[in-house]
């Protein structure tokens, strides 16, 4: 796992959260902008997933492997769940649901990096 990729993921996640908050503030549902941001976030997370799987296949193991894997898999599901749920919400709170998903991802990727970097210690 690399810090720049985690920084990129959390930056995109925060953009998604901001867009979600904006549409709630403007009393709107979610639209194309949210889909694009969520798609970009998903792409970054999938790239990260592949890189981590390759590194683990190469023999690298974080000490708390079970926790790490749980985070690794669930963080990929969060944007999908957020988008699906936001799309089915007719009120302006759809954006806030998406914002929560974005914030959760932003926290989770840094926790992932923390778990991963405990390898050396």
């Amino acid at each position, binding site marked *: 796992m690399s810090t720049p990729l985690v920084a990129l993921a959390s930056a995109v996640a925060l953009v998604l959260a901001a867009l979600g908050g904006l549409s709630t503030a403007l009393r709107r*549902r979610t639209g194309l902008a949210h889909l694009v941001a969520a798609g970009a976030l998903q792409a970054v997370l999938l790239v990260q997933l592949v890189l981590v799987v390759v590194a683990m296949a190469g023999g690298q193991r974080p000490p708390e492997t*079970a926790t790490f894997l749980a985070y690794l898999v669930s963080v990929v599901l969060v944007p999908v769940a957020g988008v699906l*749920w936001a799309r089915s919400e007719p*009120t*302006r*709170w*759809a954006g806030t649901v998406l914002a929560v998903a974005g914030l*959760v991802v932003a926290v989770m990727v840094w926790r992932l990096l923390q778990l991963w970097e405990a390898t050396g210690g």
Partner: protein
Amino acid sequence: MADRLGAPAAEPGDASTARGPGRVLVAVYGTFALAAGARAAVQLATQFDEAPVAYLLSAFSAVVYLVATVGLARGGRGGRRTAVVACLVELVGVLVVGTLSLADRAAFPDATVWSVYGQGYGFIPLALPVLGLLWLRHLGEVEREEADQKSPPPPKSPKSPPPKSPPASAPGSPPAPSS
């Protein structure tokens, strides 16, 4: 620009726990149920002997979050009552565990969700039950208003007294937060 941000939103029409702001609460509660549950599962499975009290507390908090999530998501009178109880248990839990973890650090060698009032989780565990209870109280008020507006005639007792005036119009009561 505006359309890309989505079509204009509908106004939440009914007193459902799983619509509008309630859906945000369900999302956050669901996240915490999953996070606390997964954490407790890993801790109990791999290192139960190190801090059994803390890990059992993690598991307990996960159950409370799960009950609150289900109660909020299901809605209705029963779901709301379940959610109120879960929120109260959660509030007491975070306050008691938070205080104990500060007073007697030795008893909590490893962190739980509720340690130091949920500091490890951005104090969200402290805010969540308060928000939940406020939202549930608001829903109860909305439902009472709707019941008063409709004022359906009682089906089997046509000579019952007329419905009382809506309680929300009582002077001095704070206005309900707009949703």
